């Protein structure tokens, strides 16, 4: 058996080598499909790793309170995507923030409420700048560095704001915009601080801080009464266990909301979850599209195999006459299609990672090479080789020898 396998392997190799161009093009069809899947998995993998790394960096003393959703349900997330604001209605209030702050193990708690507005300063206009309403505690939780001035503080007036590094440059053409004023929501706000430039634009808050205007929550509620708190970040004494603190937060908030529990308290790996479940859907959809191209590649393999079988009808007749069984012929052609698709797969994995590295040069991604992705794509190519090779191989195997012998080239 092993012996015959080696012979078939050699035969398949010879046949593929003889039709080099044809075989290469067929492989390329598979390779492009595999390459796009690898590219997608590597880039999305790198994003979800960035988020979980950030959570890890911030430390083990972070608890996040979010309005409750049935997060895992695909439909909910798609509904969220279709609405303009990606956050759902929230029952969280500043009162809840105060309650959490009052708990014993909590060192800081800051709400996050985002909205966006067109900001114009002289000639510079930003059509939809992110405006984040929070409290001075925010800086204690998020590892943000101030380049000039200071962060929001209770000592400063309500109308003080802090700018991200990039938005400061966009608006004032300089990172030193402390003391300048911006007018929006019918009020005049004074810049009291500017952040250091932030390379990483992806984090568990889903906010690009570099392009954000930070303002006091109270001022935001005043300007937009409907502004909702979408998240409360909580920093705790790491001496106690996170789960116990999370439970006490949950209990306190339940009392606050008169028994309503439409919020979730998450910590550790769960924090990255909403972002990654959204990412999973995007990954899934992109992979599906790439999968379609893989099917097209598979049909290419089938096409070429059918041509190969038709071309070699006479050869099949000879082989059968000298003693090849249908099974031998079947194996010969299946192996050939397997070799085509697997070598296409290898080419695709190489191409995919090459593209991922090229993209990583101009973007903040670091390509994420996972053995799972490689194993899955490899198995996929094996499956494609089998699925699309079986029909042509069966067709070859069940040719009647006398008919095939009569078939001339």
């Amino acid at each position: 058996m092993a012996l015959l396998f080696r012979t078939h392997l050699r035969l398949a190799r010879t046949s593929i080598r003889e039709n080099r161009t044809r075989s290469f093009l067929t492989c390329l069809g598979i390779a492009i499909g595999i390459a796009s899947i690898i590219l997608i998995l590597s880039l999305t993998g790198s994003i979800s790793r960035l988020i979980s790394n950030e959570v890890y960096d911030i430390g083990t003393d972070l608890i996040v309170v979010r309005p409750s959703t049935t997060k895992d349900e695909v439909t909910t997330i798609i509904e969220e995507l279709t609405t303009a604001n990606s956050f759902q209605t929230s029952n969280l209030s500043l009162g809840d923030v105060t309650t959490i702050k009052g708990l014993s193990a909590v060192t800081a708690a800051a709400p996050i409420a985002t909205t966006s507005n067109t900001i114009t300063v002289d000639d510079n206009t930003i059509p939809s700048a992110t405006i984040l309403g929070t409290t001075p505690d925010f800086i204690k939780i998020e590892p943000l560095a101030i380049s000039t001035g200071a962060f929001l503080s209770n000592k400063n007036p309500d109308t003080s704001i802090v700018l991200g590094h990039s938005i400061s440059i966009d608006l004032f053409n300089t990172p030193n915009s402390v003391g300048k004023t911006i007018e929006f929501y019918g009020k005049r706000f004074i810049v009291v601080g500017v952040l250091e430039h932030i390379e990483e634009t992806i984090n568990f808050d889903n906010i690009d801080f570099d392009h954000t205007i930070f303002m006091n929550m109270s001022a935001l509620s005043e300007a937009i009464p409907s502004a909702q708190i979408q998240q409360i970040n909580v920093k705790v004494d790491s001496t106690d266990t996170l789960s116990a603190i999370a439970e006490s937060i949950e209990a306190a908030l339940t009392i606050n909301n008169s028994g309503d529990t439409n919020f979730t308290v998450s910590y550790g790996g769960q924090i990255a979850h909403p972002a990654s479940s959204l990412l999973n859907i995007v990954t899934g959809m992109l992979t599906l599209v790439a999968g379609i191209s893989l099917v097209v590649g598979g049909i290419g393999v089938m096409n070429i195999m059918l041509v190969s079988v038709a071309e070699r009808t006479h050869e099949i007749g000879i082989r059968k006459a000298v003693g090849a069984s249908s099974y031998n012929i079947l194996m010969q052609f299946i192996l050939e299609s397997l070799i085509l698709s697997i070598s296409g797969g290898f080419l695709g994995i190489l191409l995919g990672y090459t593209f991922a590295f090229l993209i990583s040069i101009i973007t903040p991604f670091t390509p994420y090479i996972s053995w799972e992705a490689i194993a899955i794509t490899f198995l996929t190519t094996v499956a494609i080789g089998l699925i699309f090779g079986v029909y042509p191989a069966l067709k070859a195997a069940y040719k009647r020898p006398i008919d095939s012998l009569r078939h001339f080239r």
Partner: protein
Amino acid sequence: MSETVIELKGLTKRYGYGDTESFALKDFDLTVKRGEFIMIMGPSGCGKTTLLNIIGLLDRPTYGEYELNGEDVAGISARRQAHLRAKKIGFVFQNFNLIEDISILENVALPLVYIKQPSTIRLKNASNALDRFHLQEKEYYFPGQLSGGQQQRVAIARAIVADPEIILADEPTGNLDSRSSHLVMEELKAIHEEGNTIIMVTHNPTLTVYATRVINMLDGHIDTDIKTVEDHNLPQPVSVKFNKKHKKKRRKH
């Protein structure tokens, strides 16, 4: 007395049904002894090739009995048929039927692939078979690089390489000029003299001098059947006697 290799009884091959029904073979009986060189002659469409295909296990009779070496092979599985083709039957065709894409050495070794001989042994055996036909130095040529006569000798080498019980030749000289024909017939004669059984279909009456038995077919049955050599004078393979002794010894143990 020579051993019976092939026994056909009431062999019938029918094509079509009802009005279109026609018989390529009708109640065909034939007994072939070891060492016979049979030439089958007859007009086109008399069933010669069908007979050869059925004997060669490439085709099945509609009904009738076929025993090869005492084994009933008329109704065996396709897989077993393939196995017997590889082990017991060697084919020589009019149009040589060599695979163009592989060297003649590999062509000759082809039947050995399917009886699972290891690669090195296979190529050595094939090389020895080619040597016999003075083609050893052309081992790595491709069929297209050889003349018709040479290609047919390669095909004969392929037919005998697995040491088959019978060699079936379907007009082996049909595509060759008279010189090459003569060479090929001499080779077949030499093989026959070593005790091999050959059944050959031909249109050429001058070739019957090589045969030990000439069968004329007409409309699917035997018209005339002339034996020129007595059964006990048929050449026998040396290995047959050796094998028999060997088998007896084995049985005693």
